[in-house]
């Protein structure tokens, strides 16, 4: 299969998940994003014999036509050649939710157990996970699914921290529920990441990103999916509300916004990913 044919297959299968719903994009903008995401599949030296157009651009347009037929995208003005395209509502968001495979992968992250002391001087059990730079790199090499997993993992960790610190009456219920619904073994506590959210996203992840040629793709993928990542956090609480124990989502937002512990979880630098995540979260509807 030629590279531009693989490109078309990828674009159709992924439904261009990076594209936010109801967002209008010029064909040229779409082609530009596609070339950033799939640089290896966008070889401009391979051109059509009839009009000299790069095959990957032609196949990108063909992909849009196919997605149009499937009702996933549409032309803003169908009578005009080229022009604006829009992603139809309710299709573009890359819905992330808790699944057995995610939980099993999360609980199996490299971790260690330790006893520690809380402010009440009570000895309690903690399981902390960590990922080496090599581990992170191997997730990134998996492409979008690997990047999404890393985000999901740190967000699930955030969920666990929120419940542990501010909703302790629900902590056992949540960990029992997750163990029952999604994990095959008995678990007593949800493993957490040792550091802060910002440490993982802005420092740990970024260090690996900077050494990775796919940096731009990963950053773009993360930014494009930021809404999905926020939705993932809320989806966990919504699931708990439905099937386990009560949470007030507004209260949780206010905790993230106002509590000192959570102020420290996110960076103050507006350009940082953790800041963008927090900001998206606070404005999420």
């Amino acid at each position, binding site marked *: 299969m030629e590279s531009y044919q693989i490109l078309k297959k990828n674009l159709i299968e992924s439904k261009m998940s990076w594209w936010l719903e109801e967002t209008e994009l010029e064909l040229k903008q779409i082609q530009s994003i596609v070339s950033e995401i799939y640089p290896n599949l966008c070889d401009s030296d391979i051109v059509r014999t009839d009009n000299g157009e790069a095959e990957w651009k032609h196949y990108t347009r063909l992909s849009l036509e196919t997605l149009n037929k499937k009702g996933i995208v549409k032309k803003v003005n169908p009578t005009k050649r080229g022009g604006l395209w829009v992603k139809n509502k309710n299709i573009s968001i890359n819905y992330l939710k808790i699944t057995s495979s995610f939980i099993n992968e999360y609980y199996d992250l490299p971790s260690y157990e330790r006893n520690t002391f809380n402010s009440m001087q009570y*000895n309690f059990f903690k399981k902390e996970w960590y990922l080496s730079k090599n581990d992170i790199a191997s997730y990134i090499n998996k492409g979008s699914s690997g990047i999404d997993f890393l985000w999901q993992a740190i967000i699930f960790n955030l969920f666990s921290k929120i419940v542990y610190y501010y909703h302790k009456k629900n902590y056992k219920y949540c960990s029992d529920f997750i163990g029952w619904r999604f994990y095959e073994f*008995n678990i007593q506590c949800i493993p957490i990441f040792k550091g802060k959210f910002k440490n993982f996203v802005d420092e740990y992840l970024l260090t690996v990103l900077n050494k990775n040629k796919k940096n731009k793709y990963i950053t773009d993928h993360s930014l494009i999916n930021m809404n999905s990542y926020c939705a993932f956090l809320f989806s966990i609480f919504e699931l708990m509300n439905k099937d386990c124990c009560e949470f007030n989502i507004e209260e949780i937002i206010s905790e993230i916004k106002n509590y000192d512990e959570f102020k420290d979880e996110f960076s103050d630098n507006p350009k940082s990913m953790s800041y963008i995540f927090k900001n998206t979260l606070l404005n999420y509807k």
Partner: protein
Amino acid sequence: MEFSTDQLFFSSMLKELEYKPKNNELSLLKELYDEMANMAISYYPSSGADINDLFYANNKKVELLGELNPSVFIHSDYLHTDLNSPDNFDKDLRLHRINILGSVKVFDKSKLKSIYIYKLKTPISDEFKWLVLFWGYYNEEVLIDLINSKINVPLIYTVCDGITSGWGAGYTPSIPTIMYPFLAVDLGIKYIITEQNSEHIKSFIEQKYDQFRTWLNNVLLVSKNPSIKSLLELSNKELEKELIIRLLKIEEEFLNTNGRLRCFDYRFTDHMVIKNIY
């Protein structure tokens, strides 16, 4: 009247352990005595170190309990002892973020038998809870003292095994808990939370019907209910039939349906039911 430990339903056990209250223990035991007189009690036979009932045996998680919301949780387990490290269970409680507000711990010299009394604050409620553990004691010993003291136990929380003479737990086949409804009159049982649902009973009937008489005899070790005794006069076939009728007519509802968690036990969550005893 001044309070003495003789007023507690387990006073004979305390005497056997030659217990003499120290410091503030008497006031804590009096508090327990008062609480038992006024508040609902739940009993968990063959509990091991499990404390899931402290979190799930309440009317917020199990709405079917109606107004019943136990404050006193009694546990017993013959095999479970705290022989070498008496603080292990305290750590277990703290691991679950339960504050120990007061405790009395009584051992025999060999530490094969022990009674722990805890006043607790669990993370799920602002109200105090009481946990009374009888370790190294047969369930019958606790049942007899409860029945003799005419203490009502409206809720039985029992998983895996839990009635009367026998060990289970891998040493012998588990002694099923399905016979607890026959103690309903003696203990004033209204609800039983268990994994041993009617499907379980049917399978017991098919596989172990010959043991019904033994189990009923075990019930008679503690029960004062004359109707139980009359059951033993039936022939094997008649007894089997009568027990099946009585046990299967008890209404039960599965607790964890449609993906919603109401009561957790890592071994049996999918099978947990609440039985409504009339």
